[in-house]
């Protein structure tokens, strides 16, 4: 599945970051690298963007960009 499909409060593990160029580089720089565990926090009032928790901090990104991140849902 992709990150944009993860429900609020659920955990996921990153498998790969797709896409290219600047967007992808940014995602990787911000720590969305393979095997990292992320925790879905919330959606903005209008449903987009979303916010996730990883590596000890909270990050916001749009659904469209989150759909580039392939994950597997896990239970912690």
């Amino acid at each position, binding site marked *: 599945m992709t990150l944009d499909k993860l429900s609020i409060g659920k955990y996921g593990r990153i498998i790969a970051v797709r896409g290219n160029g600047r967007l992808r*580089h*940014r995602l990787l720089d911000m720590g969305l690298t393979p095997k990292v565990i992320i925790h879905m926090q919330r*959606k903005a009032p209008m449903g987009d963007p979303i916010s996730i928790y990883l590596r000890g901090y909270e990050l916001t990104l749009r659904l469209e960009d989150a759909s580039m991140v392939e994950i597997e849902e896990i239970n912690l």
Partner: protein
Amino acid sequence: MIIALAGNQNSGKTTLFNQLTGSNQRVGNFPGVTVDVKEGIYRADKSIKIVDLPGIYSLSPYSSEEILTRDFLIKEHPDGIINIIDGTSLERGLYLSMQLLLLNIPMVIAINMMDEVYSNGIVINTDTLSEFLKVPIIPISANKNEGITDLMQAVINLVSNRCTPPKQDFCAGAVHRTLHATAHILEDHAQRANIPASFAAVKIIEGDEPIMKDLALGKNEKDMIEHGIVEMENELSLDRMAAIADMRYQYIEDLCKKAVLRPKIDKHHAKTIKVDNLLTHKIFGIPIFLGIMMLIFWLTFAVIGSYLSDLLSGAIDNLAVLTSAGLKAYGINPVVESLVIDGVFAGVGSVLSFVPTIIVLFFLLSLLEDSGYMARVAFIMDKLLRKIGLSGKSIVPMLIGFGCTVPAIMSTRTLTSDRDKKMTIFLTPFMSCSAKLPIYAVFTMAFFENYRALVMIGMYLIGIVLAIIAALISKKLVFKGNPIPFIMELPNYRLPTFKNTMLLLWEKTKDFITRAFTIIFIASIIIWFLNKFDIRFNVVQDSKDSILALIGSIIAPIFIPLGFGNWMASTALITGFMAKEAVVSTFAVLLSTGMDNMSGPLANLFTSISAFSFLLFTLLYTPCVATVAAVKRELGTKSMFVVILLQTGLAYIVALVFYQLAMLIG
């Protein structure tokens, strides 16, 4: 000795900078970078200069701030780097450190927010970190001024012994081999371009275009490097970008396993979640934001700010009366008395009395920014802003624009695409800056006594609505293409530190007062002079015969269709280009009156319809010189003229349409 401060956004970099330099700060100019960076003198040793670089997460070439930092570090050769890291999100901070370490510059890592690290139950073994990274690691709490002296001592030691970070491998296997091979191939080129070879090698593998250009590699060398990279990609079944990022984070994760103990629960984040449950609430989030903005304007205009401003303007008027009486008793030449009272006191005083209001507005806006709420505003407003072709990040410059357009334009550097940056810079002048506030205040007092608040809010709203329309039009015509990805850290909520806030307020106060006594002072004297004498330098009885009236009446006809074709209004608009508050000071000088009794004389110049038309024009016409200069710095000369002409043209059209319609309806 020049020490550069580098670190993530929200890592407490500015707090540290303020602790190190106090109020000894200015905007510095460095030939190697095209934009200005902040610099200051270290308080305990005046021979040390500290440079505050923009907050960044990586040294990739994707935003102007990252490029600025790179250029500064590579081309200006600072003597040392202080890399500041937020101890509560160590991994992400170290990701930048690993790139900075390759630059061959003496470097110390300061782990900041140690107070929060302790209270969150995190244990960081700095000795282990230092052992692996081979640079000094100093724990600090910048907001509590703890560890700062140790930090500076470490930097000074390192720099005096010229201790650059020793070369070391952060990786093994395929990435390691490719890095070495690449560094070997480009070594000569790197030396010629004056870029450390290992840094150049990593960047080339990441696909960094600017570095590629700087190195000027031959075709043969490019092919060899490319071949090596493809081999690495195949071996790891990861592409180059992911391979490098993964290599860095892999190293950091291993290191943190050895050096950091993290409790399961992140207490500070848990608190932030609770606050966010309210502030970014599905239903209440946006109304709360609007409520906060209204509260800010209400406090500024109706409660604290205006109360303090009234007090101050009363005091200035009293002082003027006293001075006038004193000068007259002394028997001074009446022309000199007029210069002091009608020129300096009227002009400078009219601006000075607004300083408290402006400071209150800046104070409240700075609370939004420093507490971390501004990032939430970007989060909740992103979807709406996307509809007009922008991203949530653009809301920050626009909100700052209500204070002053100059820092607002400078803050657009955080926007990672030129398209968004340009569009935001073009739209920010639509947000009424605080220097326009005196104009609104004086005019609403004179013409809309019963609807003061309504007209004031109206001005702000008209600006916003026109900005939205302008955005929608330019999205279709000029700024095609997609907005940038919106990827942003939501920092934990923090109480703004007293010292930071005070320093900011002091800077703004100083700025406005300096301007009152320089630009406004000189402008007031010039206006007074041109208004007092005729072309034969005789003192005029009626200012209708003055030099200024002559000049003004040449321009004035242009504004007849807008309803304010009198020479005083045109003069005020011209001086308003120097600084917006000069519009009011000019009227004060021309009508030789203080702030408190300007209403009567103004009513002779305007009707309430032409006054509103004048307000519309001042809301929209060309931003002041300082803003125009900031636009030039960020976007170049062409864009600067586009901003001036567009804004003035739009102002003319809007005021014209309003005035003509209003006259038709009667």
